[in-house]
C-alpha cells in the first residue's frame, strides 16, 4: 500500500480515538439533558473541577490554602501526605455527589419550570463559579495527573502493523484505554437505566416530568442522581483528559469540543454521543490532514461545528435525536 494511504488510515484511527474522548464529555451532557431538559454548559468545568480535586487530594494539598495565606499571612501548602489513586478517585467521586446535591439544593430547586434558556444561562453562571472555585481551592498552576494509566505508543500495534504493511501505526495506549472505558461506561449506563429501579425512574422522568411526578417519583432525587452520574462521567473524562494533557484551565474548553458531537448525534441519545464523537473525531483529523496545509492549518477549532451544521440542515434533530414534532 502507498505510504499516503497508510498515513491517512493512521490519522483516521487516531481521529476515532480522539472522538471517543469527545464522547466521554458529550455523555454527561446527554444524561442531564434527557433527565431534566437542561443544557448543561458546566459539564466541561465539572470535568476540570473533578480533575483538580483528584490531583489535590492525591498530593495532599490543603484546600483554599491561597486564600488562607492571603488573609492570615500564613504559609500553608500541603498536609504532607499522598493518597493512593484509588482512594483519591473514590473521594473525588464523593465530592462530585456532594456537588450534585448542592447544585440541586441551591440552584435547580429554585429554577423549576423556568424557560430552557434561563436554565442554560444558570449553568453558564455555574460554570464561571466552579471555574473560580476550582482555582481558589487548588491553585491555578498547571498540574500533572498520574493515576497509573499507561501512556505513549502501543508497541504491539506498532510491531504488528510494521510487519504487515512495512509502516508502524502510532496509537497511544491512553486512547485505547479511553475507548474501553467509554465502552464500559455506556454499557453500565445502559444496564443501569434498563434494569434497575432508579434507572426506570430516570427514564420515566426523561419521558414526562408530570406523569413521573404523579406516579410518585421524586423529581428532586432523580435530579440529584442524574447530576451525580454526570459528575462521575465528568470525573472519568477529567482523568482521561488530565492524564493526556495536564490539568489546567483549558480542560474546561473540552465542553466546546463536545457540543458539535451532541448536535450531530442528537441531544437525547447516548449512542448518538458515541457515534457523533467518532464521526467528528475522524472528520476533523482527516480534514486537517488533507485540507489543513492548503488553508493554513488549525482547522480543528471550527471544522467540527461546520460539519455538524451541515448534518443539521438535513436532519434538524441530529442523527439519533427524537423527532421534533410541533403542534400549534
Amino acid at each position: 500500500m502507498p505510504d499516503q494511504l497508510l498515513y491517512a488510515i493512521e490519522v483516521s484511527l487516531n481521529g476515532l480515538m480522539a472522538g471517543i474522548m469527545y464522547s466521554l464529555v458529550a455523555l454527561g451532557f446527554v444524561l442531564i439533558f434527557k433527565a431534566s431538559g437542561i443544557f448543561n454548559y458546566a459539564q466541561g468545568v465539572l470535568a476540570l473541577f473533578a480533575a483538580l480535586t483528584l490531583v489535590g487530594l492525591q498530593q495532599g494539598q490543603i484546600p483554599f490554602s491561597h486564600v488562607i495565606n492571603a488573609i492570615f499571612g500564613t504559609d500553608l501548602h500541603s498536609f504532607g501526605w499522598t493518597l493512593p489513586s484509588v482512594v483519591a478517585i473514590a473521594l473525588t467521586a464523593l465530592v462530585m455527589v456532594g456537588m450534585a446535591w448542592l447544585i440541586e439544593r441551591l440552584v435547580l430547586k429554585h429554577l423549576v419550570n423556568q424557560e430552557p434558556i434561563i436554565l442554560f444561562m444558570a449553568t453558564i453562571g455555574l460554570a464561571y463559579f466552579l471555574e473560580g472555585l476550582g482555582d481558589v481551592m487548588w491553585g491555578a498552576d498547571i498540574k500533572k495527573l498520574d493515576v497509573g494509566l499507561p501512556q505513549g505508543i502501543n508497541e504491539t500495534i506498532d510491531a504488528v502493523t510494521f510487519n504487515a504493511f512495512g509502516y508502524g501505526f502510532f496509537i497511544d495506549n491512553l486512547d485505547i484505554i479511553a475507548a474501553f472505558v467509554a465502552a464500559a461506561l455506556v454499557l453500565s449506563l445502559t444496564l443501569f437505566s434498563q434494569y434497575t429501579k432508579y434507572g426506570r425512574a430516570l427514564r420515566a422522568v426523561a419521558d414526562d416530568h408530570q406523569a413521573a411526578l404523579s406516579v410518585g417519583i421524586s423529581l428532586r432525587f432523580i435530579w440529584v442522581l442524574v447530576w451525580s452520574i454526570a459528575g462521575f462521567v465528568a470525573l472519568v473524562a477529567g482523568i482521561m483528559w488530565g492524564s493526556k494533557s495536564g490539568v489546567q484551565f483549558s480542560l474546561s474548553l473540552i465542553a466546546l469540543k463536545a457540543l458539535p458531537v451532541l448536535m450531530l448525534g442528537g441531544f437525547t441519545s447516548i449512542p448518538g454521543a458515541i457515534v457523533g464523537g467518532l464521526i467528528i473525531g475522524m472528520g476533523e483529523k482527516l480534514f486537517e490532514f488533507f485540507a489543513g496545509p492548503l488553508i493554513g492549518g488549525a482547522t480543528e477549532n471550527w471544522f467540527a461545528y461546520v460539519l455538524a451544521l451541515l448534518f443539521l440542515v438535513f436532519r434538524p434533530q441530529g442523527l439519533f435525536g427524537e423527532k421534533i414534532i410541533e403542534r400549534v
Partner: protein
Amino acid sequence: MLYREAGDFKTSYVKDSQTFPIKADRMAYFALLAVAFGVVPFLINDYWANAVFVPFLIYAIAAIGLNILTGYCGQVSLGTGGFMAVGAYAVYKLMTTFPDVPILIHVLLAGGVTAIVGVLFGLPSLRIKGFYLAVATLAAQFFLVWLFNKVPWFYNYSASGQITAPERTMFGIAVTGASTPAWAKYLFCLVILVALAWLARNLTRGMIGRKWMAIRDMDIAAEIIGVNPLTTKLSAFAVSSFFIGVSGALFFAVYLGAAEVGEAFGINKSFLILFMVIIGGLGSMFGSFAGAAFLVLLPVLLKNVLVGGLGWPTDLAAHIELMIVGGLIIVFLILEPHGLAQLWRVAKEKLRLWPFPH
C-alpha cells in the same frame, strides 16, 4: 404622587403611542440626555472613559443588537463575538483602504458588512431551532475568529497579526488612534448609541418588530397568520448583526485601538453579551442598557474592593471575581428571571400608586 398619568391628556394618536406615555418619564429621559451630552463630556477623564463610560456605550449597542435577535425574535445566538470581529476587521480594512472617507461612514459600512455575514449564518435558523441553533451559531464564532487569524489580507500582512486603528478625525478632532481625548471617544460612541437605540426602539414597535415577536412566540402559528418566516428571521439576523457589527467596529477603533481577534472577540465576549441581555431583560430596550451597565460596572467595582480595598493578590482576586460573577448570575436568575427590566417595571407600577396603594 409625582409619577402618574393623571392630568396628562392625550389629544392625538401620535401622542397616545409615544415611547414614554408618562410625563415624568419623558422629562427624566430628556434630563438624562441633557446630562449625557451637556455635563459628562466636560467632567470625564481617561480613567472613567476607559473603565466605565466607553465600554458601557459600546456594549449597550451590542446588547441592543443581540436583544433584537434573541429577545424579540427568539433566536438564541452564541456568535456575537464573531460578528463583533467582522465589524472590527471591516472597519479596519475600510479605514486603511479609503483613508479620506469620514470615519462615521466606515463604522456604518462595517455594520452593513456584518449584516450580510449575519444573514449568511442566519440561514440555518430556517431549519434549526432552539439549542441546536445556539450551538450552530458557535460555528460562526469559531470559523470567523479562525478566518481573521489565518488570512493575512484581513490584518494587512502585519507581522504581529494584530490590527491597529490609525488616527481618524471628525470636525478636526481625533476620534480614533492614540491621541484621542477621552471626551471625543465618549461623545462619538454616545451619538451612535442614541441614534441606534432610537432606531431599534422604533423598529421593534413597528410592523417588523411585531413580526419578530410573532415568530418568537410561536413560529408555526405566525406562519399560518401570514408572517413569512424567511424574511422575518433573516431581517432579525441582519438588523441584529448590523448593531453588533457597529459595536465591534467601535470596540476596536475607539476603545481598544489595537486588537488581536482571539483575545478581543473570543467566545467569552459572546457569553458576556448574552448575559447582559438576559440579566437586563429579554425583549426590552431598557434591559439592554441596564444589563450592559451592570456587567461593565460589576468587575470594576469588585476589582476596586478586592485588590484596592482588601489588598489581595490580583490572581486570587480574579478567581474570586469569577466566582462572584457566576454566583450573582445564578442568584439573579433565581430572584428575577425576567431581568432588571422587570424590576424596573414593578418599581414603576408601585410608584404610580404611591403613596395611596389602594
